[in-house]
């Protein structure tokens, strides 16, 4: 059980700044996820906590003890953390038991104790009957569990997971997700988890740090991040969202690209804005706020994925699966809006587009 305090950590490789003034405090028993697109700096942050990279500036404390910063640097082997690598890094020349026992044998733990600990942790990851197998006789999921067991066997204060599920197939990934969460709850340890998969992050985390281009965009619980994104990037990264440029005035937002149609708005912003609306927050209704023509609809079973032309804009609407029974393509429809996020039109959206293309 450990707390991790990170103070203004910056990391640069030459001129390339991959992480800028990262500050955070992870509490005891918390499940923290560092989330972001690839190359955002999340893995670098994790490797700095582990001690594989040195911060260019800033400090990292584990349990109140300074481990990186100033002239102090505690090497990885002295930090008492567990880590699971993306490639599992299970040693092919040792069998499962030796792999898992390794951290304890390094600490010169008595043989009998090692045996007990390894057996216990193998049963936690459901690998008890595989102790004598070699890694090349195991499936990817099993190797992954060996890596997890090895990270847990020395009862670390802190467990670091670097995209541990990204090499597994979809089904296995889903079940491992809950297993890891269960283990974390049972042992009550502090976990720092790195992923680019937002669903994974949403499902497991107590708190998410959403990082983009080396800068933390938002930090909060999954609900906070999903429902009240701090900016356009966060809104876009989590779930599906479409942006519409408009003008906020007199309790409405007017969209020039929709032929001047408008949506009521009670928020405090005025002037040019980006309105972000998730497709599932549109709905078909008799007395909607927007009118347009239903252009296409794709029936996906549980939902009906539609495109509605409003003025010059094509609006994506994810409606429930019954809609296709009543609506036909080419028909005039009215759309209501359940929820909407409004950001100032500060050019961030254009920046994001530029990067993603």
């Amino acid at each position, binding site marked *: 059980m450990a707390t991790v305090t990170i103070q203004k950590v910056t990391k640069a490789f030459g001129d390339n700044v991959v992480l800028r003034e990262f500050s955070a405090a992870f509490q005891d028993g918390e499940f923290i996820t560092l989330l972001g697109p690839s190359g955002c700096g999340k893995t670098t942050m994790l490797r700095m906590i582990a001690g594989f990279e040195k911060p260019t500036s800033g400090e990292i404390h584990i349990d109140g003890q300074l481990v990186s910063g100033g002239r102090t640097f505690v090497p*990885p082997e002295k930090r008492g953390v567990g*880590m699971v690598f993306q490639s599992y890094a299970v040693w092919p020349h040792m069998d499962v038991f030796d792999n898992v026992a390794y951290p304890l044998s390094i600490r010169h733990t008595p043989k009998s104790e090692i045996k007990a600990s390894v057996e216990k942790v193998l049963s936690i990851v459901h690998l008890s009957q595989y102790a004598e197998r070699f890694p090349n006789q195991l499936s990817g999921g099993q190797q992954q569990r060996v890596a997890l067991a090895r990270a847990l066997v020395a009862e670390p204060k802190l467990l670091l997971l670097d995209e541990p599920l990204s090499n597994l197939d979809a089904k296995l990934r889903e079940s491992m997700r809950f297993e890891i969460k269960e283990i974390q709850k049972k042992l009550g340890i502090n976990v720092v988890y790195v992923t680019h998969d937002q669903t994974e992050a949403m499902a497991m985390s107590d708190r998410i740090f959403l990082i983009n281009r080396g800068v933390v965009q938002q930090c909060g619980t999954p609900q906070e991040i999903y429902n009240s994104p701090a900016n356009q990037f966060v809104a876009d990264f989590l779930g599906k969202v479409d942006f519409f440029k408009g003008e906020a005035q007199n309790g409405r937002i007017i969209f020039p690209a929709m032929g001047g149609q408008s949506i009521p708005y009670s928020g405090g912003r005025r002037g040019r804005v980006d309105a972000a609306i998730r497709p599932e927050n549109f709905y078909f209704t008799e007395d909607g706020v927007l009118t347009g023509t239903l252009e296409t609809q794709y029936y996906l079973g549980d939902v009906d994925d539609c495109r509605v032309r409003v003025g010059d804009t094509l609006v994506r609407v994810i409606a429930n699966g019954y809609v296709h029974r009543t609506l036909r393509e080419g028909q005039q429809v009215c759309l209501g809006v359940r929820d909407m996020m409004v950001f100032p039109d500060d050019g961030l959206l254009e920046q994001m587009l530029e990067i993603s293309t």
Partner: protein
Amino acid sequence: MQTTIQTRTRSAAAVKLMLLILFFLGIGIILNGVRGQREYAKSGFSSESAYRAIYRLHRETESVWEQKLSPDLGKLTESERQRLGDIAAALLADSWEDLKKGGGETAGALLSGAAEDEREALTHKLLYATFLTAGPKVSTANRKQIAALTEAEAESFRAALLRCVLDDRAEAPAAAAKLAGELTGAEREAMLMQVWFVSCGSMEAGVTEQVNALKKSVRDKAAQLDAFRMIARGEVSAVQQLVAGHGRTAILIGAVLAFNALLLALLMAGDQTWRVDLKWIVILLIVDFLLLFQLLPLLYMLVKAFFPEGSFSLETMRRLHTYPLNLDAVKNTLLAATASMVFGTLLAFPLAWLVGRTDLCGRRFFRGLFVMTYMVPPYVGAMAWLRLLNPNVGTMNRWLRLLLHLSDAPGPLNVYTLSGMVWVLTSFYYPYAFITISRAMEKMDPSLEEASRVSGASPLKTVFTVTLPMMLPSLISGALLVFVSAMSCYGIPSIIGSPGRVHTVTTRIVEYVSLGQQGLNDATGMAVFLMVLAVVILFLSDVVLAKRQYITVSGKSVQPALVELGRWRIPLTVLVGLFAVLVILIPFATILLTSFKIDVGKSVLAPANFTLSNWRTVFGRVETLNSLKNSLLFASVTATVGIAIACTMSYLLQRTRIRGRKLPDFLITLGSGTPSVVIALGLIMTMKGNFGINIYNTAYIMIIAYLIKYLMMGMRTVVSAMSQIHVSLEESSQISGAGWGRTMLRITGPLIFPSIAAGWFLIFIPSFYELSMTALLYSSTTKTIGFQLYEYWTFTSQPMSCAMAFGILLIVMLLNLILNRLTKGEFSI
């Protein structure tokens, strides 16, 4: 549909028929070759070229008869003709009398057996044939005098000659007067007839050559009679002279043809497709080449070692065993190779780790430096260490004496010892292990080490518990590579070992070869020992490497965190730096400095000891330039042919599932693992005509030897490049409408071009400075730069050879630079 199937069966039948015909054609040629050989064995001719000479001389005789002899006789009266015929028959009987003792028909019997109307012609033709080799001597001056006559003069000259023959009181014409001067009776007649023949015969060089060939190959008298008869009667046909004159070659060609037809049939039967695929032809060609020039020599040597005189005997082995020098050589070879392997690996692993995994200062620089040593000819290093560690005048020894306040006695170090040789071998072969280990280390997932660190192990502990065990297969195969290379090295032992009487198997082999037939047998015994050892080690290495296939899921390509050496960083950097200075800088500097000296024993800075004349002299000599030209030519041809084979093989290995594609691959691998001297010795023993191919003392034999030894270097490079190009890249080109050729040209070619260029240089560079094989295969016109240097070093002056060595070094570095530029830095040695 029906028709296609029919056509296919029909064409399948045609192919089967063709293969059958080819097979029997091959068998037929073999049988003819065997017959020719048998005929030859019975004939008493001492060389098969007799048949060719006889055939050519028969044609010459016929044309001389038609154009000159017969018209000349036509001018005589009937009775004169009759008398001339009688004289000729008498002369024939006379000269055959001497020869006939060996047996055979008499001239009289031969002539009386002939038809009436043919008798005269036969008599003159027989005499002509006889006098070609066994007649009275006509000096070259006289021949020239006769040849100088004009057509009309010659005609009257010949008419006068014949008159003289018929009338012994007649005056001989001017050109023959001196020749016939003192002679009387039959001797005079013989001489005049001979002069007649000479003035009728053509003076073409070809004819003289054939006459000489005939003289050489029919020393036996009975055989001589046979030869004359065969010339006169045309008993050797065009086909016969080919078959009997090239019996071995015919057997070889027939065997290759029949073998290929058989192999092709087997391949097609296995594939169930009776279609002639171009790929098969290519495979067959490569296989034929390798079987002939690689496998045949090796097998022949194996046979020769245990069946020296045709029956099983361990005589060769016993002789080798009882001769203490040979036992020493074997002992020295094993000791030196083992020690070099141990020391080389002990050096290579820490160096590879320091350079690859830690924050050692200048790690990239050091890496490049250590890898570069790989391309330095080993004999250059040997020369440098000789200069440094000579017990009396070695530079390093003199410093050590000064530093340690030793007396002026020789020492303290002596390069002319086994340990001296081990040191030089180690310092030149550790890069082999270094490169093998470094490559494997780069491929290893760094997370494996990081997982150990985060589990609580220190960097050093991680090296021993994770890195070393993971590297073990590469470590072992690198070590074995050092062993085999050190064991088969000739350059270093020949320069260091020979003066110090430290013999090795390779130096013994080269010495034995120069000792004639007995020596060749002994050399074979030694070579077989070397070969068997190399093959066993190659096999071991393969077994070890096969286990390397650890499954490692590749993670994202994170730059591995470098181990921080902390307070050890500077001391370790200094240590590695010192090693580089000792192993690379000092030897090269020695070579360079020595090349400017007049007196080798003095410092280059000593007064009046600096000169550029060594460089000027060496590179001004015609022999140097010739050998340089030879080296460049041979190496370019080798590299170009080699890379063509390499590309073909890569395509076959990577892009087809054709049967039998592994066979040439196996042979090529075997060839590169065979010690150089063994390859060369095998070629010497099989390519001097006894198997129908005679390329002894030519450039071909050297190029073939280089190809066998270095082909694999090029092939591996191209194969690995092609394996990295996913086949979908080619498929998407084909789906875009490009044919096979265009796809190769536009997609695959450009993508693997850097590797092709690299492969070319990888074959070129070692062929360029090769010494071990050249030392056995060179002839006076095919000396190479490496061998020329060796000769200068042994027989001329050390400063001059140092100039040349440094020149070679510069060329190799230049080539490396070109390679680097050409492949945009992707490849360099």
